[in-house]
């Protein structure tokens, strides 16, 4: 198995990569910090990866995406699967007063992923096999007043993935939409933890099995599917009065 992991220093991506490593997969890790990528590379090597290559890139540099994906194909001699996992969790109070910051969050959490999905989609369509997974969020299922900039970016990503899945279905390529709930990672370090928070290890394992099976839309943990179903069916007149 040859796997591209974008945003590899995220705790969720790293845990997913560990599952692939235990199977002896070859991995291509992309992230901003060379130092963190090296720490993850060594971890995956010890855990059984047959090969680990790293590539340092700020994913907001969209012009570099093509070259990065070329490098991944080159280094691993092809790709069987890709996981796109980079992202940031904006502070809603700060972004809602700034056009610039709102656009920046869209760039990171939606547009850069769409850029990667476009390139990977075309390549996987040609090779007529493989699996592309991207981490969206339960926050993308409905715009909440406390987190709607992030939610809107993830919502757009979810819609994009849904369309791409339909298109690539005909080529035998699986497109997996991952929708995690709260996960205990550095991204949520500032948020007070409660029993709804999942451990990144369990989330990573679930993503790994979803990718192997080529599932469509996966909520992690599973109960979020039902929680979000309820949240989606609330009438807007009622939903707008909720402050969460």
């Amino acid at each position: 198995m040859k796997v591209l992991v974008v945003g590899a220093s995220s705790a969720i991506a790293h845990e997913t990569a560990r599952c692939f490593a235990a199977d002896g997969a070859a991995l291509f890790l992309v992230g901003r910090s060379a130092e963190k990528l090296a720490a993850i590379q060594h971890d995956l090597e010890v855990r059984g990866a047959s090969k680990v290559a790293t590539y340092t890139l700020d994913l907001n540099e969209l012009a570099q995406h093509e070259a990065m994906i070329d490098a991944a194909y080159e280094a691993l001699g092809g790709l069987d699967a890709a996981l796109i996992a980079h992202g940031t969790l904006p502070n809603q109070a700060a972004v809602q007063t700034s056009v610039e910051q709102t656009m920046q969050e869209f760039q990171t959490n939606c547009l850069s992923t769409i850029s990667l999905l476009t390139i990977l989609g075309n390549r996987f369509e040609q090779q007529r096999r493989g699996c592309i997974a991207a981490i969206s969020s339960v926050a993308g299922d409905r715009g909440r007043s406390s987190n709607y900039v992030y939610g809107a970016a993830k919502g757009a990503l979810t819609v994009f993935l849904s369309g791409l899945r339909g298109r690539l279905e005909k080529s035998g390529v699986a497109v997996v939409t991952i929708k995690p709930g709260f996960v205990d990672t550095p991204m949520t370090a500032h948020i007070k933890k409660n029993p709804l928070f999942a451990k990144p290890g369990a989330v990573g394992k679930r993503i790994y099995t979803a990718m192997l099976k080529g599932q469509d839309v996966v909520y992690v943990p599973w109960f979020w599917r039902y929680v979000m179903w309820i949240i989606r069916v609330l009438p807007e007149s009622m939903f707008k009065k909720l402050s969460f």
Partner: protein
Amino acid sequence: MVDKGYAGDHRSWGRYPKIRRQKVVPVYWRDDEIDLSAIDGTILPYGLGRSYGDSCQNEDGTLIDIAPLNRMIAFDEENGLLRCEAGVSLADILKVIVPRGWFLPTTPGTKFVTVGGAIANDVHGKNHHVAGTFGRHVTQFELLRSDGTRIVCSPDQNVEMFRATVGGLGLTGLILWAEFKLRRVPGPFIASEQIRFRNVDEFFDISADSEHRFEYTVAWVDCLATGKQLGRGLFMRGNHAWPNKVPGKKAGQRSLFTVPVDLPWFALNLVTAKVFNTALYHSQLGKSKRKVVPYDSFFYPLDMIHDWNRLYGSPGFIQYQFVIPFDHDRSAIRSIFKQISDSGVVSLLSVLKVFGDVPSPGMLSFPRPGVTLALDFPVRGQRTLNLLDRLDRVIQDEGGAIYPAKDSRMSADAFQAFYPQWQEFSQYIDPKFSSSFWRRVTRTTE
């Protein structure tokens, strides 16, 4: 990855004493600039919370959660040398090393502990009589002090800080990564033998007979039996098995179940405990039983029941482990057994082992030559505490010691008698570091 209930839960395993106010700050990357001095108040590293008492708690202070530091760094498969971050669990390590023919140099009765915790408590296992403590196999580690300095310690570099940190209860600084030696094994199985013994004397006979032939020895004792049956139990011994002796078995561990809720406090009482212990004793019909078993069921039977500490109910439980030096007529250990069974206090699971004379490397290490007994008691008010205070005095008279990793109640006087070297150790404590345990046992008594 190991679950600790849910993510925000940072209690101790015995869930006693109850610590109300403490903050938690995670560390994510070993190479980041980690400014410990910026945190208000005192700090203490916290791994997977398997210490039973308050040695992993810091009331009114902050816990540094090292569980995210769970990355492997390097594995020298030729020489069996593993380097990893301090938050990596033994469970994680076993998954990597056992398929490649290596095993932990020694392991406690749960694999859900971190490497940092194994060093800080200088843990021991069923092979203590041959391998000594975990700290003996540590070749080096990096310690981050609150002033920002990073010190690499090994048995020949920064030796004093090495000796203070091994068994140093997390008080000398934050261990970021460690390297230690593994042990070659022929496969994932243990050739085990379980022998029933009727009393303390039989235990010592079997133990002496097993020491040279078996790498792993331990016994379960029925502490509720009285009279002639005082000290009866089951002796377990084993060696790593060669694959040709293993008839097509699978080595994985099933986790049986997770205890979903706290049992009511009265579920565990003298009657249920007696039934459990008597059933365990009679679970084996013959005198001895041989079996080749996966390493998990030999070393970690309790790990199959996730959150087993909840069986004791929400008041929690007290673990009590002591060691006393050998005496010729075994009168001390017999009198301790008698005091326990006479007291009518409930002890569910008691574990007895003879420590060997391999020296422990840490200044505050617990293991020393003699016999060690671990008991657990549900928290039920003063009677249990009175019994343990009485036992403390016996152990003090015998020149023994209590294990800090399990303690939640010994007095400052008792600790200072068990560990007279505590003042020498104190000079290596990082001024920013403290724990509920340490404040309790160093309280000046006037």
